[in-house]
């Protein structure tokens, strides 16, 4: 047995959607995080809950990249592939490093599974020699699990459901991970059903013992804790972080949260998380449809709550008219869009950044709103908090953009304390006896109008979607007033630039050959690529936008410090259009539209091509 020290490792767990690979991956993630590794994860699953068993369409994967160094992406290629069946192998082999380890569940390579994966029996990859370039460990996980649980009193179905624990135990052994966290998890998850709990614990241990006792594995690996900034950490997923950011904003603004929404992938977890925290006064309303979700939130905003709605692209399309209403009403409202690949239903479980133009322009009339985007799972907390703060301070709708990749991905998070978060000052309007008539569209220095909530004596007033007369808020068809108000609402958005941080360079020189300008969930891949390019001596820098409307004030000047500006996006070129339009810079698009995140090497290659051209 050889012990080997590694800087970082990428493991991909892949199996049928019923094989519990997401759970296995999540467990390994938590354990690696607790151990002190830096990490990034990428759950990649089909839209169907139980796609046809054994088929390529039904393959569910979970990739984790963990290391003793800073980790920003789930890794381009995996070092280890767990393949619970032949379909899982077929779907993932192309991203396994040459020489990488394959842990194959031989039972998943039987005649039936070969047929379901459309592999001729003669081409069984475990037998035909096609995997020669890899280190293949064939284990009959199903058989071992069944024999380990022969006396458990459980049925075959229940027994087979424990298979993933075998794999988890084995991988824990391979990487010297303590199993306590997973043992605790199993005890709390299955505590009510002792037989199932014991079965899972037993198979987990069997997986560990298998590594220990068989001589199948010549190596065991150590991945030391990463050198991270001192502090207390936890592991966080993007959608969880969004919910916490919202609750934090609620505590800091002393306003109850109202979340009006309709279930949609991949945004539903925000609802699930928020609905657990009613003790914080959080109100979650699962409406009859997307439109009712946002409209109920508008009603709640009128009533003086911190009002939020959340969805993904198709749902946002339905909410469009109501976003226009909120813009006219000038009420605070946060609209969360956890983007997925479109158009229409598109690829519901796959990631994309193709709703940026929808956020900017996707409404009738001139209807500008604030737009923020989170760049990583943990950043979802900061930007959701910021979205709430800007909405409340400026009395305006705010788009908060996330995406399926960061929503479901996780990373270690050095989380903030309540005291370190800024207070959000909210003052409801009260009757001023010196004013004969309340003026609902009078504005402060931020151009925000007063928030006069029903129930306040002396401030009875009417608001609506019809054009307003400046200051009085009365209906006005005056042509000059309409133009004035359109410009005013634009100005209100533009001057938010005075209240947001200036754009920084994440890495690299302040002037140079190429600036990589990204936004949203591509941060990790672009950061990794930039570091590598700089290491190789290229004059490359990376800036990542979190504030998209308005842009930070210094953005134009910053962009002009580079010979070329490259805008990588998971869409057909959206930010690049706006940058070109706004700054008249010949920004170069770099696009990927495959429902998958960028891989660092793709970005590196593209930037090299651009540097050479």
């Amino acid at each position: 047995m050889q012990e080997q020290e590694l800087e970082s490792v990428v493991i991909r767990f892949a199996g049928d959607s019923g094989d519990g690979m997401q759970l296995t991956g999540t467990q390994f993630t938590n354990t690696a995080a607790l151990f002190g590794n830096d990490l990034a994860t990428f759950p990649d699953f089909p839209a169907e809950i139980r796609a046809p068993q054994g088929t390529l369409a039904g393959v569910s994967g979970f990739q984790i990249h963990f290391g003793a160094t800073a980790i920003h992406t789930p890794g381009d290629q995996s070092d280890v592939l767990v393949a619970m069946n032949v379909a899982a192998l077929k779907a993932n082999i192309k991203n396994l490093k040459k020489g990488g380890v394959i842990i194959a569940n031989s039972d998943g390579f039987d005649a039936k599974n070969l047929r379901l994966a459309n592999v001729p029996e003669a081409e069984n990859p475990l037998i035909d020699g096609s995997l020669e370039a890899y280190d293949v460990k064939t284990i009959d996980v199903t058989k071992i699990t069944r024999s380990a649980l022969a006396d458990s009193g459980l049925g075959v179905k229940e027994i087979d459901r424990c298979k993933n624990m075998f794999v988890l135990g084995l991988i824990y052994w391979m990487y010297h991970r303590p199993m306590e966290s997973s043992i605790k998890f199993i005890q709390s998850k299955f505590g009510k059903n002792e037989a199932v709990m014991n079965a899972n614990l037993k198979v987990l241990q069997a997986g560990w013992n298998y590594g220990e006792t068989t001589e199948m594995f010549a190596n065991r690996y150590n991945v030391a804790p990463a050198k991270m900034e001192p502090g207390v950490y936890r592991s966080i997923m993007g959608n969880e972080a969004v919910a916490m950011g919202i609750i934090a904003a609620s505590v800091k603004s002393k306003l109850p949260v109202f979340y009006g929404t309709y279930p949609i992938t991949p945004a539903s977890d925000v609802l699930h998380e928020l609905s657990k925290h009613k003790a914080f006064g959080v109100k979650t309303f699962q409406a009859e449809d997307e439109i009712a979700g946002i409209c109920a939130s508008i009603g709640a905003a009128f009533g003086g709550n911190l009002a939020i709605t959340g969805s993904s692209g198709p749902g946002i399309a339905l909410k469009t008219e109501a976003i226009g209403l909120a813009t006219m009403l000038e009420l605070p409202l946060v609209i969360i869009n956890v983007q997925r690949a479109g158009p229409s239903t598109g690829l519901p479980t796959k990631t994309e950044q193709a709703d940026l133009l929808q956020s900017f322009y996707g409404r009738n009339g001139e209807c500008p709103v604030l737009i923020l985007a989170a760049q990583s799972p943990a950043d979802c907390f900061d930007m959701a908090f910021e979205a709430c703060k800007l909405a409340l301070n400026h009395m305006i709708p705010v788009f908060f953009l996330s995406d399926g990749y960061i929503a479901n991905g996780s990373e270690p998070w050095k989380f903030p304390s309540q005291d370190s978060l800024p207070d959000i000052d909210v003052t409801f309007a009260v009757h001023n006896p010196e004013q004969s008539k309340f003026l609902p569209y009078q504005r402060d220095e931020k151009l925000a109008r007063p928030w006069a909530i029903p129930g306040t004596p002396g401030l009875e007033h009417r608001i609506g979607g019809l054009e307003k007369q400046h200051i009085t808020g009365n209906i006005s068809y005056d042509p000059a007033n309409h133009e004035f108000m359109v410009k005013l609402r634009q100005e209100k958005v533009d001057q938010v630039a005075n209240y947001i941080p200036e754009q920084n360079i994440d890495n690299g020189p302040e002037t140079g050959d190429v600036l990589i300008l990204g936004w949203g969930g591509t941060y990790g891949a672009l950061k990794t690529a930039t570091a590598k390019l700089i290491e190789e001596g290229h004059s490359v820098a990376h800036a990542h936008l979190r504030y998209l409307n308005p842009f930070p004030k210094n953005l134009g000047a910053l962009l002009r410090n580079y010979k070329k500006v490259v805008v990588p996006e998971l869409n057909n070129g959206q930010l690049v259009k706006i940058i070109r339009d706004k700054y008249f810079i010949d920004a170069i698009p770099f696009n990927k539209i495959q429902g998958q995140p960028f891989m660092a090497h793709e970005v590196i290659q593209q930037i090299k091509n651009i540097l050479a051209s």
Partner: protein
Amino acid sequence: MEIKEQNQLTAKHFATDQEVRWCPGCGDYSILKQVQTVLPELGRPKEEFVFISGIGCSSRFPYYMETYGMHSIHGRATAIATGLKLTRPELSVWIVTGDGDSMSIGGNHFIHLLRRNPDVNVLLFNNQIYGLTKGQYSPTSEQGKVTKSTPYGSVDYPFNPIALCLGADATFVARTMDRDPKHQQNIIRKSYHHKGTSIVEIYQNCNVFNDGAFEIFTEKGSKKQATLMMEHGQPLVFGENSDKGIKLDGFKPVIVDLNDASVNDLWIHDETDLVKATILSRFYDDPSVDGHFPRPFGVFYENKNKTPFDELFNDQIAYAQSKNPSPSLDSLIAGKETWMVS
């Protein structure tokens, strides 16, 4: 002091300085007047009233009420009002909508409002036409209606709004008419006092695009014959000289002549009986057809035993808060498992 001031409120206090812009002769004027008459009697300060409307002629209503108000988007007042009521259950929330707004574009929200039963009041102005868009048929227009969009007559079957509301499990369902101020006031008052969603269908004449649609029910010459004024605990009597009645033969309603039959045999209206309300809701015949049933007005149904949605919703939050009276944001953020990097 404050109560005294409330008592002094009059209809005038509920009128705004905005010019009312409905067409002269529109039935909406009467509804506005009756609401402004009833509200001061309710003993609540004006700031506790909120009127929320969608789009359509009727939806201009909030602009004319000196209360809080929102003129929102087409069909969505119900959803907006739900959000407001959930967050501010102490307010008196009113939804003003029309037949197009509530049953066409807002149909989904409308039935779900009734299903959930928050304690709000709906005033459904039914004029059986699209007025604001200048005269297309609506989901309550009679089949064969010739309008701008149906020059050959509409082939759509109409909704029966009362039956629709009962079908959606509404807990207070009533009908009144613009031309009968006293009846209207009475029904609006009752609807206010109902705990849960109350829906009042108001037959409202659009004198420009659908003039006379309800004439037979509202005008002196035909009203007594064509309408059935329901009163809880009273026999169902109608006719020019109150000489006709409704009897139930099993589940089958029968019109009887009181010259031949006794009032004691008549169907006694019971607002709490859903089955009977359902039968009454089907008194929806074309009044020009022989042997038709009179059109009922008044309260069809009231269910006082269904806890309003806003109450259940907020009780659940209060329960969670009682279990965990001072939740810590710090422990929420930290989650279950943390580790220290030193």
